[in-house]
């Protein structure tokens, strides 16, 4: 009897192992928007890390011209032919890429949407963070550091860009709750470092005292910082993106905080979700990362180079 149990047990174990082996080596196609924004680099490293730990393979698809709609559309067409097992997808444009996603649906390739929500098409799950709540939390961090008193300037991103619209809403809603803070100016820096530097220089001419700077992204925050340094002035500065440069400056005390999208975690979770879906494991319909504001108290995990970080699991994030 014992012998039979042993045989059954070992056969079951072998079957289990072999089905796990059959399920591995999935090929996942990961689409990101560009090669220029360090954020997407983080996303790709997250995806690679998750795939490696779960024994799957990733092919990356990135437009050579940053954020190019026609290129992404043609990359999707390539992928419909090559037929990877699953797609992890952030659309360059959340409306223009819907027909492409529908092609993927028609080809029966499951799609996990991450970062920017598509306005149509069938996706198995959406994993993201939202600009509005990250911006609001970041602004609240600044307001807290200013004790709710003083004056600020806002350096906006590209007028009309969806991210900018949401981030400005977030900043302004946080400011509405702080009647002691005066917004001296809200001027566009176009998400560009040099432009933000020059805008800040100009604003400093009008306003001899600026207590806080709300920049819609880290590049502009650093531009503003350089302008202030050049004039030997100081302000509390916050940005958004949680880039390595921002983390270094937060550590040095030159920047107050940065709202973190954690591209790395989004890449991890979306890839995990894709692989789990292929392995017939359940995945949530939506995972929204809680906004994290990186500041002097919690920057340490961000110092670990990406390649050495481990992916959190979906449960760790949603739980």
């Amino acid at each position, binding site marked *: 009897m014992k012998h039979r149990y042993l045989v059954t047990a070992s056969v079951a174990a072998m079957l289990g192992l072999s089905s796990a082996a059959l399920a591995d080596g999935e090929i996942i196609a990961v689409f990101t928007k560009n*090669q*220029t*924004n*360090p954020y*997407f*680099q983080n996303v790709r490293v997250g995806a690679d890390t998750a795939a490696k730990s779960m024994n799957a393979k990733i092919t990356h698809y990135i437009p*050579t*011209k*940053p954020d190019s709609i026609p290129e992404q559309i043609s990359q999707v067409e390539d992928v419909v032919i090559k037929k990877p097992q699953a797609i992890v997808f952030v659309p360059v444009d959340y409306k223009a890429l819907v027909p492409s996603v529908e092609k993927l649906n028609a080809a029966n390739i499951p799609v996990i949407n991450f970062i920017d929500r598509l306005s149509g098409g069938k996706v198995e799950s959406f994993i993201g963070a939202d600009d509005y709540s990250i911006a609001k939390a970041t602004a609240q961090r600044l307001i807290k550091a200013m004790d709710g008193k003083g004056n600020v300037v806002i350096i*906006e991103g590209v*007028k*009309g860009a969806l991210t900018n619209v949401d981030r400005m809403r977030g900043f302004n809603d946080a400011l509405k709750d702080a009647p002691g803070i005066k917004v001296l*100016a*809200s*001027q*566009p820096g*176009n998400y*560009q*470092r*040099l*432009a933000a*530097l*020059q*805008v800040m*220089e*100009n*604003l400093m*001419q*009008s306003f001899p005292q600026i207590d806080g700077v709300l920049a819609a992204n880290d*590049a502009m925050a*650093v*531009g503003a910082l*350089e302008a202030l340094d*050049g004039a030997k002035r100081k302000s509390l500065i916050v940005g958004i993106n949680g*880039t*390595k*440069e921002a983390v*270094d400056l937060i550590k040095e005390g030159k920047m107050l905080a940065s709202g973190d999208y954690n591209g790395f975690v989004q890449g991890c979770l979306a890839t995990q979700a894709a692989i789990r879906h292929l392995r017939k494991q359940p995945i949530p319909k939506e995972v929204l990362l809680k906004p994290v504001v990186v500041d002097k108290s919690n920057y340490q995990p961000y110092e670990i180079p990406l390649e050495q970080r481990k992916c959190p699991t979906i449960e760790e994030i949603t739980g």
Partner: protein
Amino acid sequence: MSVTTDTPRTGLALPTEVSQALYRLVAALLICVVLSFLSDAFLTTSNLLNVLRQTALLFLMASGLTLVILTAGLDLSIGANIGFSACLAAAAIKNTGSPLVGFAVGVSVGAAVGFLNGLLVALLRIPSFIATYGMMWVAWGVTYWFMAGETIHGFPQSFRQLGSGYFLEIPIPIYIMFAFLLLGTIFAQRTVVGQQIYAIGANPMAARLSGIPIERRLILVYVVSGAMAGLASLIVLARINSAEGDIGEHLVLPAIAAVVIGGTSLFGGSGTVAGTLIGALILTLVVNGMNLLLINASWQPLVTGVIVLIAVWIDIRTRRLAD
């Protein structure tokens, strides 16, 4: 552009060009007067130096481009060239710790890209806007691959002086601007090669017939345009203290606008380096004014566009009157 009656302009700067530049200087001064009424902060030493320093950067980018446009060409690659040169210079400084090496790398990479443009336009006879547009893509591609989505930041103080340093209380880029204004004007107006460049733009057929080595001059103007982009990239690097792949992306159109507003004709053959400086000044004053007056962000691109259109219209009208 008529073929039979145009003669190449040679010799000293014609009064028309000087008066064109003067009209624009008056326009710039008018803007200054208006702004000083509308904003208390405008007419302060601090703001004026601020405006001049910002103008210096735009002028340096646009100065080499002026020579290209004088030959009736266009260099769309200067933005990408700035990004490319800045990134390579940044890597060089980080690896060797030497600002001088970074300086050499920045200018020579810029010039090298310019040289390639020159070859495409002069030898392969590819129209300049296509050749430089293609070069723009090549430069972007190599830059993004090289940077791999990373940023290089933090440069030695000695290097940063180039962009954020002062000498006798005046920002260093302003001195560089005037130095190149002088060099550029002497070159364009007082040297044979400079006058030949005007001739090529005004009437290429006549220029060739009068023995001007067109290919060599074309290559020269693109090399200069690229080298100036390289120089500008160093100042950008010194000011923003970081290098990223997309630094120059938004700088091409303002540079072209500065040249056009400054009175240089896109059809070639007429214009001045001084005009470009005034064009750069006008553009910088407008942005400065919009920031000082807290003009809503939505209106700002519109304002810039309108000014460029007005400048081109004035230019075309005055040429028609002069003919």
